[in-house]
């Protein structure tokens, strides 16, 4: 029994799913569920704060130091809110839709590789699985829009379905070009892979992230994916299904309370999922940057400690902000709270820079950092760009992204098969 429990821990190469350890798979699932939920809470705060700073505002400031407890306050509010059921709504579907959306969003998480063995399982069709499951999410949105018996949700869900279907094509083609790159790994005999772990492995073996592979081909494919993934997750500037100024709130106009929060949760989880695809396929997944330029054990150690250092810096930022809080008796609890928070964060950071820990968790930390970069981009776009109109969105999807991704795919194949041609064109690697 004990053997069964600890047996997996001695395994340092496989994910629990592959190793057949159901218990550890379950534990991983719980960790990921909790982790993603925690990420959503943090992202909720982070997006508001970031957006506020882009817009020369402060953002949440009153609930907790710098509004840090705001997501919790919101969660409590949403849980206690009335669950409104519109008149004439299709009750069963109306109630089921948010659950469905949430379910699909979280199901994709099981193949995300946070590290060589930090994934629930490593499927040989991993990327296909992610695409397939995440596109099922649109079904929930259509159900929500249809069941609400209201015009705005209906229009929103129709937009959403059309948008997701058309952007999935470009997205899929971009992914194929990345998958194709895996087959150029020396020693794999030209066999590519769809496994998420193996894709990162291929990047490690090839010594380059796919975003730099066949420059600019990899980069263009990445750019296409980066655009399509925004559309896929219904975020600005492609947030037509929930376009606030046109459709009020789009497909979730009629939702309230907990069910509405399911949609929010699913939206952020979806953002996490597609960002992790982008990270895995093009940004080297859990790999640290500059593997060739700054190679060696010392550099490995330095890069492993970097996330911890970053966390410590965040802690010091908390100290700085605590010192800068307005001097007012009413602010005292918040200032104290911020100091305590800073201390905790610094402690965590110190823990993370300790060499044994640092080496163990550096892959997860780098993966999360890369995802954080995408999250920042999401908010940045939202702060800057106007919203596309529906027909223009379709135009961009079908007339711009699709041809380019097709072209990239073809050219990638050609230059992959004929390295001499690539070398003659002056391309590197």
């Amino acid at each position: 029994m004990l053997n069964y429990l600890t047996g997996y821990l001695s395994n340092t190469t496989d994910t629990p799913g592959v190793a057949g350890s159901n218990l550890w798979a379950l534990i991983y699932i719980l960790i990921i569920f909790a982790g993603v939920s925690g990420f959503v809470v943090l992202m909720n705060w982070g997006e508001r704060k970031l957006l506020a700073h882009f817009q020369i505002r402060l953002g949440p400031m009153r609930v907790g130091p710098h509004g840090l407890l705001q997501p919790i306050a919101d969660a409590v509010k949403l849980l206690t809110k009335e669950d409104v059921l519109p008149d004439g709504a299709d009750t069963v579907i109306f109630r089921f839709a948010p659950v469905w959306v949430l379910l699909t969003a979280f199901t994709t998480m099981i193949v995300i590789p946070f590290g060589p063995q930090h994934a629930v399982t490593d499927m040989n069709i991993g990327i296909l699985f992610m695409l397939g499951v995440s596109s099922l999410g649109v079904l929930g949105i259509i159900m929500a829009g249809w069941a609400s018996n209201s015009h705005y949700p209906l229009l929103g869900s129709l937009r959403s379905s059309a948008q997701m279907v058309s952007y999935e094509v470009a997205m899929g083609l971009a992914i194929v070009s990345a998958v194709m790159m895996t087959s150029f790994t020396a020693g794999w005999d030209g066999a590519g892979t769809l496994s998420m772990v193996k894709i990162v492995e291929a990047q490690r073996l090839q010594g380059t992230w796919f975003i730099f592979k066949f420059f600019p081909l990899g980069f263009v494919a990445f750019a296409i994916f980066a655009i399509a993934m925004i559309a896929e997750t219904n975020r600005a500037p492609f947030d037509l299904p929930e376009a606030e100024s046109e459709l009020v709130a789009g497909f979730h106009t009629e939702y309230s309370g907990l069910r509405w929060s399911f949609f929010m949760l699913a939206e952020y989880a979806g953002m996490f999922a597609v960002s992790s695809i982008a990270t895995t396929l093009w940004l080297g997944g859990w790999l640290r940057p500059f593997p060739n330029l700054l190679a060696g054990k010392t550099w490995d150690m330095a890069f492993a400690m970097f996330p911890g250092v970053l966390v410590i810096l965040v802690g010091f930022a908390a100290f700085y902000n605590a010192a800068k809080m307005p001097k007012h008796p009413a602010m005292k609890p918040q200032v104290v709270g911020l100091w305590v928070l800073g201390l905790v964060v610094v402690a965590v950071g110190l823990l993370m820079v300790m060499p044994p820990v640092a080496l163990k968790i550096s892959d997860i930390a780098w993966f999360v950092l890369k995802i954080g970069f995408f999250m920042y981009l999401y908010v940045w776009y939202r702060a800057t760009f106007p919203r596309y109109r529906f027909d223009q969105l379709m135009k961009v999807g079908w007339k711009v992204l699709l041809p380019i991704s097709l072209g990239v795919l073809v050219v990638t194949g050609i230059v992959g098969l004929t390295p001499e041609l690539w070398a003659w064109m002056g391309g590197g690697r």
Partner: protein
Amino acid sequence: MVANDRDFYGDEWGERTSTVLDADELVLNMGPQHPSTHGVLRVILKLDGEKVLGTECVIGYLHRGVEKIGESRTYTMFAPYVDRMDYVAAVSNGLGYCQAVETLINVEAPPRAQYIRVILAELQRIASHQVWLGTHALDIGAMTPLFYTFRDREEILKVFEKYCGARLTTHAFRIGGCQYDTYDGFEKEVKKLCDFMEPKFGEYEELLTTNRIWVERTKGVGILNGDDCKALGVTGPVLRAAGVKWDLRKAQPYAAYPKMDFEIPVGENGDTYDRYMVRIKELHQSLRIIRQAVDSIPAGPIMAKVPKVLKPPVGEIYHSIEAPKGELGYFIVSDASLQPYRMRIRPPSFINLQALDKMVRGMLVADVVAVIGTLDIVLGEVDR
């Protein structure tokens, strides 16, 4: 209201006899509670999918009977009420009203007052356009310009507050001139404000003017050509964007405008993008006017000799000014009593809004929002 709805939806509306799956038309009720109808405008859209087949505006949710109030207040007392019509351009409303009454009683404000009026009215034009730009961009999905424009508008409101003690509903002018003289350092502050504004306008443009999404969303949307504008009585930047070079400040100059050197920006196509460009250029022209006015502001009295108790002789006059949104006119009938016998206000927003139907037919729902934004309506003025 109910009867009205029935008219529009047809008789079966109440009983729901027609099938829900009637795929031909969809009636979408936009507003009065809607994020982008700029207040309490209600637009009933008849849609085919997302294409607009027709619209009907339902207005009056903010009707306060300003014209009726005007009949029961003296001329002086009514001045604060006009501020509350177009509450983002209160100074312009007040300017129009005061000038209308001055025309009626045949009094002219002294030159210094005229200059102060021009400065404040142009500042108000900038502020009004900034509100327009922020909300219009927000309608089209760009959230951030709103905050930048409101931050910069804040500086103008601070000048208003310092000058007359109120930020929004200013009640800055009185019949016959101005109540308040400029405060110490007014000229310097206004000039500093101009220098502060110029680069900010550049930033708005950087965010929007060349942005491909903005261009696609606005070019060719809501086209209204010059003849349509004239037929529909549309004035202001909407008319100028259609290529009609007409501005009351030039056509029938008032206050100190004859002495100002400025240009009337015009567009070509009369689409939403042109209206945007015209207003952006107007921002710069306003700065130009303010700079000139501040430089050449004469000394002297700020109030003409106006009787304490105003009793204009029997007669009627119409006077209009170029408010930020178009021609704002006052038609006053006097019966030689203390109160106006009839106080008619010609609101630019009300008449411009009428063009909405023509502009959005055949467009998409998203364009309706853009067009409402580009018309720059204020419901306080539409409903009065």
